């Protein structure tokens, strides 16, 4: 008989402050070192794809809010764009510009949340988050002004948006956009050289470029690995070809790069909103004329857009009735989370939380 060691199995979650929702990570450990990670999902499953089959096209919009609830506006946009493509509806110019403004503000809000909670996971308990929430709060205030709610916006409609923005909205956005770069500098002052952040995230959880591409990762996770892939540039949907912006990419694909890419993307989003505000047509309709119980023609359509967390796709099949025959959602974080194992194996259990935080998952989207 010989003395031998055995791996140790640990469940992190489903109720754990660092799992960003209800996710279970089944971790196999050799002492402190991770041998295997397996995400167990489905705790927040609400069957949104199935529910959609029993509801009209317009009634599904509030349900898309509940996918990625930190970036509900872009979910609205993606779903509406899929139905518009199916039915061949053209969104008025002002509607398109407002959609861009709202999507980019949403991207800033979502990235603020992602960076804040990533730092929270590192151990900077609550301080950076509260700095970032201050700006997120301003964005949510503006969203509330436009659509009446702070999280479940239900603002986009098939063919445009539900209503035009109130007159106070555009001055508020202008002011916010003018201030925001200063606040991002402030975050940089707080964080960019912080030794603890650098020591805990530089070189940790590296996702090599080839692996990132082969698992189909998208969004900041992919760009941090050095792949210049942004649907807004590669396959400009809506009116993104009219704006001048850069796609920041990382070099190594470690946790710090993912943090860094998000910070840079916020600056680029500010630029896009600035340009969109300049080009925004002054007056005009924001929504095409679409009846409430409209019937999409028989057929199918797939639209993929660049949501804050990656490529968000909606696949709609219509049989000509008032409800979709099938709605499939392609959520970015579900794909990104499959990179967990590639990133985490070989690192310590304390790094697992950081690596997980750097992916920026939202369970509402993964489980649907």
């Amino acid at each position, binding site marked *: 008989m010989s003395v031998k060691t055995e791996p140790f199995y640990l469940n992190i979650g489903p109720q754990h402050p660092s799992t960003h929702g209800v996710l279970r990570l089944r971790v196999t450990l050799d002492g402190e070192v991770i041998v295997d990670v397996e995400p167990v999902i489905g705790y927040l499953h609400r069957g949104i794809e199935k529910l959609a089959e029993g509801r009209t096209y317009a*009634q599904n919009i509030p349900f898309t809010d509940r996918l990625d609830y930190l970036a509900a506006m872009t979910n609205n946009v993606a779903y509406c764009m899929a139905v518009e493509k199916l039915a061949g509806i053209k969104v008025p110019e002002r509607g398109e510009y407002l959609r861009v403004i709202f999507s980019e503000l949403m991207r800033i809000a979502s990235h603020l949340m992602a960076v804040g909670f990533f730092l929270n996971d590192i151990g900077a308990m609550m301080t950076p988050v509260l700095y970032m929430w201050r700006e997120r709060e301003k964005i949510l205030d503006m969203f509330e*002004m436009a659509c*009446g709610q702070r999280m*479940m916006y239900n603002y986009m409609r098939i063919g445009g948006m539900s209503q035009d923005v109130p007159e106070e909205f555009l001055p508020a956005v202008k*002011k916010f956009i003018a201030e925001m770069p200063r606040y991002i500098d402030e975050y940089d002052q707080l*964080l960019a050289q912080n*030794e603890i*952040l650098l020591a805990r995230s*530089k070189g940790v959880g590296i996702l090599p470029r080839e692996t990132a591409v082969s698992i189909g990762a998208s969004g900041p996770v992919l760009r941090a690995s050095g792949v210049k892939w942004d649907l807004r540039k590669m396959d400009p949907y809506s009116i993104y070809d009219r704006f001048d912006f850069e796609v920041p990419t990382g070099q190594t694909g470690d946790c710090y790069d993912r943090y860094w890419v998000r910070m840079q993307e916020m600056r680029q989003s500010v630029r896009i909103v600035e340009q969109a505000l300049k080009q925004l047509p002054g007056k005009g309709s924001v929504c095409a004329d679409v009846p*409430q119980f409209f019937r999409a023609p028989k057929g199918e359509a797939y639209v993929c857009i660049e949501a804050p967390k990656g490529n968000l796709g909606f696949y709609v099949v219509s049989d000509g009735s008032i409800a979709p025959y099938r709605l499939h959602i392609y959520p970015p974080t579900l794909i990104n989370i499959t990179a967990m194992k590639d990133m985490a194996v070989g690192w310590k259990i304390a790094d697992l939380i950081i690596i997980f935080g750097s992916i920026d998952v939202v369970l509402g989207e993964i489980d649907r």
Partner: protein
Amino acid sequence: MKFEHYGLGIAKGMALTFEHLFRKPITVQYPEEKLHTSKRIRGNELVWFPDKCTGCGTCTKACPQGNILLVTHRSEPNRFIVDKFECDTGRCIFCGLCVESCPYNALAMGLKYECAKYRRGDFILNKEKLTASENHRPSAYFRPQFDADLPAQSLLLYDREEGGQKLKFLPLSTRKRGPGA
């Protein structure tokens, strides 16, 4: 990992935190002080105008939750009398689609947001509870005619501006405390 000037990054961060010590707080003492919500807020509890409602049923069809119960009977040709108009606030997702779809402006979203109840049954609001009154006011969501009566939203964006719009507070609330209040 090696750092050239160890502690510089932390000192920079601390300096920023120190600056913020001398800033006025932006938080409010919630139940005593309240911020003004957006004019378009999709608050709890629908507001219904019985004199405008024709009983057409568009709102019931628009609701994704199947949440509005409408029972009518015909009085004379082309006129309906609404017998029952009920909404279950406990199931409502406050999407506002019913308000958006009403062709006669007979339905509006509420302004309230503190609507916790002790029993589930209390969430079901009947005709009397939904009817608009002094204490049950509509918000301007899809009803721009109510826009002028409502106070401007308090925005965090303008808090430090001189002469700009400051955060506005509702007066100290005079609500009762304790169960059943």
